[in-house]
């Protein structure tokens, strides 16, 4: 037995297993993609032995008809509301005052203290179309811009402030650029390349 055949034998198994790994990655990526909107009985959460499950709507039936997105429920909920694809009730009690804010009053909030990332423009309008002022003010956020103590990415990632909804029920915190969307102007030049 020559040296070369020993070398070949040494290389071969590793190469074969790397193929297996590549195939496994491809399969799992495919499953993750095709696995969107699993039927309730197959989502790992609902008990398939519950005979009443077939009376409940499966996510795919409702969500596949709404504007698509790449994160969360794979639905762009803001667009769905804007385009009238969903028409959710605003109140149950007749006397509840429903307040939706347009862009002028109060304005979008521009958060500049974002280190090297782009600044954050917080749109009041889109948030008030789903939420009541009291959901955020004065509990999670002070009304006066820049006065909320502890408002930083670390706490957001812990589920405070924006993280109370974003990452749990609204688009997740892995979507950095949806919030950090306002390029920082550089004095005497175009926006910074970042």
């Amino acid at each position, binding site marked *: 037995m020559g040296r070369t055949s020993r070398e070949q034998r*040494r290389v071969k*198994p*590793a190469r074969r*297993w*790397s193929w*297996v*790994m590549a195939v*496994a*990655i491809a*399969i*799992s990526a495919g*499953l*993750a993609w095709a*696995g969107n*909107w*699993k039927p309730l009985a*197959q*989502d*790992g*959460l*609902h*008990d398939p032995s*519950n*005979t*009443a*499950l077939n*009376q*409940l*709507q499966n*996510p795919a039936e*409702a*969500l596949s008809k709404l504007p698509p997105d790449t*994160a969360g*429920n794979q639905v762009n*909920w803001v667009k769905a509301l804007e385009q009238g694809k*969903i028409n*959710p*009730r*605003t*109140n*149950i009690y007749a006397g*509840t005052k429903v307040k939706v804010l347009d862009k002028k009053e109060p304005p979008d909030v521009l958060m500049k203290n974002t280190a090297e990332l782009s600044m954050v423009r917080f749109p009041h309008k889109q948030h008030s179309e*789903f*939420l*009541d002022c*009291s*959901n955020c003010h004065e509990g999670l956020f002070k009304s006066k811009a820049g006065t909320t103590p502890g408002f930083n990415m670390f706490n*957001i*990632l*812990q*589920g405070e402030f924006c993280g*109370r*909804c*974003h*990452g*749990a*029920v609204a688009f*997740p*915190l*892995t979507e950095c650029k949806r919030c950090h969307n306002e390029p920082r102007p550089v004095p005497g030049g175009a926006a910074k390349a970042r």
Partner: protein
Amino acid sequence: MGYNQQKHIRHGIRRYVRVSAIALTMLMLLAPFPIRAEFGDVVFNKHSEKEGVRPVIFPHWFHRIRFQCKVCHSELGFKMRAGDNVVLMSDIIEGKFCGMCHNDNIAWGADRCDLCHTGRPGLQSGVIGGASTGGPGRW
């Protein structure tokens, strides 16, 4: 280093590659399977299983199509943090929390146990599905 020793080491490396490949393959194949619930699904199991019923699964996606967030989180008084709400059947029957709509009027009533208590036994309370917040370590 003797030939036998070299062979031994090579054999060890080969086995290491093979074992780690098998382990990774299994991980990759299993990863998408366990829970593929919808982003924002909430499990309520503080009392359910102790009381002998399945945990409750609340689908945010289903309710959001029909109600704005503010209806439950402002009018009905659901706090915006999983685990902060103590929801008892007695309250629901009296028309509080879920019972505001689940009253046989807007939606099915509190006697339809199996339509809400749909979870697998042993589930932990909390927001499930997608990247729930709880720190960078969770992703």
